[in-house]
């Protein structure tokens, strides 16, 4: 098994298309990220306000903000200064909003039957919101950029490289004719499947690590490496998130989900490759499925409930991560609410287990 695994890993990584794919992906990513880099450091605009947000600080901020007249055209740095003040004022607004939501939920809880599912669900939401700490404000741009890249950039690069590297995993055996020797060999119908699955997961792990290293290096060189203590509610689209994570913790979670979603997708591509005897067809089908998931998730379609529920457990949701954590969402498990990110892990694990089972069956029954 260890020897076969070594060979399968070697076979994936020694493909020229993988090497070209890696170079192209990171070059394109570099190009796009480079466009996003601010021309000068703005950390000094936030530094005076970092730490606990007190009423005194807020008054000063508001007074400074009011000095920026609407009529006058602002220089770039003035504009950024204004944005910095606005961010901190928003932070205070979010704190108020969170308190309002907590009070609203408490009111709702009093009106709800204490033995009902709804009561438990509101209670979970309430407990989560109460844990969020709006005490300290931190300048977060570098950490935020590093975090953001893992979502979209990670999904695009990992998805593309899985398609390039894993699509030929079985179809290449058909094209080269090695299937004939493989299928009549002692380990050719079972151990080979373990090896290919493990090799695919190792490939996903290596690419994920490469994405993280690239991401870290790029933004650390471009800016610095600060902002990890800021809470995720200060990030765009996370204002309503009930999770009390700082950016550092969420970054680790995000990388973990990217890896899990990537592994599941790689296993799916294994299956498609085992079902087809042609690398191009395997690539096209897998790309189509990934693209379709992505399109349905990001597009504003009025999809039937069944499809929406299925999409909640799609590879793309896992690899893009953010949608799992942006809002309070639970699933009813025998009358008890379970948080969506946890249900996602259970769901994607079940889907992956089914895919693995079918993969084994396909190779066991394979005739060539």
């Amino acid at each position: 098994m260890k020897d076969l695994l070594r060979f399968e890993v070697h076979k994936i990584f020694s493909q020229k298309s993988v090497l070209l794919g890696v170079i192209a992906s990171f070059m394109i990513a570099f190009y796009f990220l480079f466009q996003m880099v601010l021309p000068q450091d703005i950390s000094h605009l936030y530094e005076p306000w970092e730490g606990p947000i007190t009423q005194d600080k807020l008054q000063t901020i508001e007074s400074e903000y009011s000095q920026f007249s609407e009529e006058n055209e602002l220089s770039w740095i003035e504009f950024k200064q204004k944005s910095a003040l606005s961010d901190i004022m928003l932070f205070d607004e979010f704190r108020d909003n969170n308190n309002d939501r907590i009070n609203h939920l408490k009111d709702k809880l009093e009106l709800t039957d204490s033995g009902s599912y709804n009561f438990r669900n509101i209670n979970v939401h309430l407990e989560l919101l109460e844990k969020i700490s709006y005490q300290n404000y931190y300048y977060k741009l570098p950490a935020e950029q590093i975090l953001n890249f893992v979502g979209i950039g990670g999904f695009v690069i990992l998805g593309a490289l899985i398609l390039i590297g894993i699509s030929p995993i079985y179809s290449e055996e058909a094209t080269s004719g090695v299937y004939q020797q493989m299928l009549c060999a002692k380990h050719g119908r079972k151990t080979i499947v373990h090896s290919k699955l493990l090799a695919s997961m190792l490939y996903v792990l290596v690419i994920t690590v490469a994405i993280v290293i690239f991401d870290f290096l790029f933004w650390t060189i471009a800016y610095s490496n600060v902002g990890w203590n800021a809470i995720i509610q200060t990030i765009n689209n996370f204002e309503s998130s009930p999770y009390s994570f700082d950016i550092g913790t969420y970054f680790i979670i995000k990388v973990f989900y990217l890896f899990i979603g990537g592994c599941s997708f790689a296993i799916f591509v294994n299956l498609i490759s085992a079902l087809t005897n042609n690398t191009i067809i395997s690539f096209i089908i897998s790309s189509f499925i990934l693209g379709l998931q992505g399109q349905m998730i990001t597009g504003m379609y009025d999809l039937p409930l069944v499809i929406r529920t299925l999409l909640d457990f799609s590879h793309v949701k896992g690899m893009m991560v953010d949608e799992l954590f942006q809002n309070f969402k639970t699933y009813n498990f025998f009358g008890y609410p379970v948080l969506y990110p946890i249900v996602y892990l259970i769901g994607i694990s079940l889907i992956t287990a089914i895919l693995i089972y079918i993969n084994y069956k396909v190779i066991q029954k394979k005739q060539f």
Partner: protein
Amino acid sequence: MNLILENISKKYDNKQTLQNINLQFSNGVYGILGANGSGKTTLMKIITTILRPTTGKIFYNEIDAFKQNDIFRNILGYLPQKVGFYDNFSAEKFLLYMAALKGVPSDIASNQVLEILELVGLEEYKKSKIKTFSGGMKQRVGIAQALLNDPKILIVDEPTAGLDPKERIRFRNLISRIASNRIVLLSTHIVSDIEYIAKEIIIIKKGEVIYKGQSEKMIKEIANKVWKIYVNVDEVEEIQENYKVGNIIDRGDKIELRIISDQKPKDSAIQTTPTLEDVYLYNI
């Protein structure tokens, strides 16, 4: 040690490729003769468990090939008609990969690969990439991979196709050398591949075994059915339409024809010593 094929049939859609094949093999070389499309490769693939028969079973010393397939595959070696390679692998690396697939422990595999490369005369090319090899060299890598797990059953399908005469002789000698303690099933439509090395010949026609026996016995059975005649060029076509014609040799003013026929084809026909090729032609 017996390999038994019981009522093997294979149907693809509506086409019956193999029909009720019942065969038994013990150690030694078995030549499986048949025209292209006769079902030889399908039979080989079924014995290797790459294909499943529509009906029938295969046993090796009471091991059911399709039920205890891991045990059965452990004693198999297979050289397909078109061997699959990873062109970017060196011969040694490819064989190490095949050894891993066959479950040969890595501490044994390295030495075994070197020994087999020596056996097939490729030891000095072990680090060369397979894509740089000639057809004959590739075929030798093919036989090397088939022998890796020291198989009790070795199945070789059309092994000499595309080889030059020197390579064919070399291959035949190699098979002969390794056949003493295993069952070797060698399918071909080239009679000379098996004429001197097969202990028994099986002739397959349209998916059915039409003959199985020792080559000497088969040759004896057609002892008075092979003829030589000398005709004019314009008579050749007519004779070919009416008789099974083997060799056609231009003898200057006449054409010499080798005819396999129950009846004397012409008064001037001379009876001649049959060969295995005549047996094949007689039965096909």
